[in-house]
């Protein structure tokens, strides 16, 4: 059970001591061209979560490779790079640029950012295009805002994904207390935090029964107990997002809490908990049953 950061929720270069607590660092999404991101206001707290509308602010792939990547390597934590584009061909081009960079362990395909216009192609088409462009492990980051996420997960697996990152934020709106106008510059944003946890758990639960590839669970994780639940639903690894904003030392705290929770349940490793939410059923049989 590895603990990662959710893409876009940590800058390893400004907070290396926070990054050092992680088993792998996931970069902010890199796009083909530089993006300034959305107009302020970009964040808003709600009662049970937060909204963001950062809008994939990033320096673009050229500056990422030339300026950021060498410094990220110096941080000394295994590196995942998140990529995003507006067409499958852009994802493929990004993957080609990253393919020969040995310092990158995994490429995460952000096919589901709620703050930019979605690519015209389906998640599976994007995964297939990326698959043809790189031999690196590919994780597809999916949105929970679909009728059947297991079907999307199966399609991503069939297209060549090596893993699933579940889930991205979901669109939400917050209104100003006095003016009743949207708080965020672009009105709607991506909703994350504690309110997302049951939604994310359901996505992990559904996909675990439908795919054979590993799942990184994320969405509202704040404690070791939360990680136990994601593992039980089927996550092999987890990522922390919103909780990093209130507690930069959350990764180590959560890791310590996880060990205590697992021991209290009578297990020796977090991996022993994986899939327990599915009862005695064997995952292989669940996956096969989902395909008939």
């Amino acid at each position, binding site marked *: 059970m590895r603990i990662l950061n959710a893409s*876009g*929720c*940590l*800058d390893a270069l*400004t*907070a290396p*001591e*926070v990054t050092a607590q992680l088993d792998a660092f996931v970069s*902010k999404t890199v796009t083909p061209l530089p993006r*300034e*991101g*959305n*107009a*302020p*206001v*970009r*964040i*808003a*707290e*709600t*009662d*049970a*979560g*937060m909204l*963001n509308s*950062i809008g994939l*602010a990033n320096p673009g792939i050229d500056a990422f490779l030339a300026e950021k990547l060498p410094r990220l390597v110096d941080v000394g934590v295994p590196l995942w790079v998140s990529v995003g584009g507006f067409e499958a061909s852009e994802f493929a081009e990004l993957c080609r640029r990253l393919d020969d960079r040995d310092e990158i362990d995994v490429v995460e395909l952000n096919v589901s950012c709620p703050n930019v216009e979605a690519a015209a192609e389906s998640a599976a088409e994007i995964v297939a295009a990326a698959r043809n462009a790189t031999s690196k492990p590919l994780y597809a980051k999916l949105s929970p805002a679909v009728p059947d996420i297991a079907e999307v997960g199966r399609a991503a697996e069939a297209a060549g994904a090596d893993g699933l990152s579940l889930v991205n934020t979901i669109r939400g709106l917050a209104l100003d*207390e006095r003016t009743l106008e949207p708080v965020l*510059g672009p009105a709607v944003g991506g909703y994350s*935090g*504690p309110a997302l946890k049951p939604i994310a758990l359901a996505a992990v639960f559904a996909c675990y029964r439908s795919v054979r590839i590993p799942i990184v669970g994320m969405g509202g994780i704040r404690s070791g107990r939360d990680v136990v639940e994601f593992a039980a639903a089927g996550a092999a690894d987890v990522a922390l997002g*919103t909780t*990093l*904003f*209130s*507690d*930069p*030392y959350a990764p180590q705290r959560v890791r310590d809490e996880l060990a205590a929770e697992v021991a209290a349940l009578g297990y020796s490793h977090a991996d022993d908990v994986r899939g327990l939410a599915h009862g005695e059923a064997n995952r292989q049989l669940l996956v096969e049953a989902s395909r008939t």
Partner: protein
Amino acid sequence: MRREALSVAGVEAVGPYTLLRLERGRMEPGIPGQFFMLQPPERVLPRPMSLCAAPAGQLAFLIDAIGPGTRALVSVDRGEQISVLGPLGNGYRIDVETPLLVGGGIGVAPFPYLSERLGSPPALLGFRSAWHAEAAALVPQAEVVIDPVLVTEPLEELASSHNVLACGPEPMLRAVQQLAPDAQLAWEAPMACGYGACYGCAVEIEGELKRLCIEGPVLQQNVRQEACA
């Protein structure tokens, strides 16, 4: 950057504002103008607050309770614990010869600590009412103006002969910069994290969107926060 749960030592009304006193623990007060992230009980995100005062063994924050987070912060009881992260960002440069503090409204917040570190320099403070102006009592040598009089009125004469250190609402900061182009200005933006992780506090600095928590909050440049895309 350090994070610690600090005990509430006192909650006092100062006009419409609230002075929240926390036991300091092992936290450093930092440089005046730097800020701390205070975690309101039962809320998702912490709130950025500049340090108001650093009495022995304490850190004190002046809070204007205007939303759910700040209301939760001022509703705490003595002895309760609040998680605090900091000090963060870039504060004021205090190696100036003839400092003059210029503040508006809750912008007075960092001045008691700043004034202490600068040896009680003169201050010009503007408030919207006499009730709000009660906060001026926290700052030595303060000349107070009340709406409709603005701080820029008395500042006009003093700007050229002083090093201005300002904090207040955006229009005030812009007006101060017109009169004192080299003024150090403490800006504000909504922040989720305070340490560069969320990219939420991006503001336009010299034509580029940058994170205020990393570049500021105290800057000599002008900052644009309104929608620019």
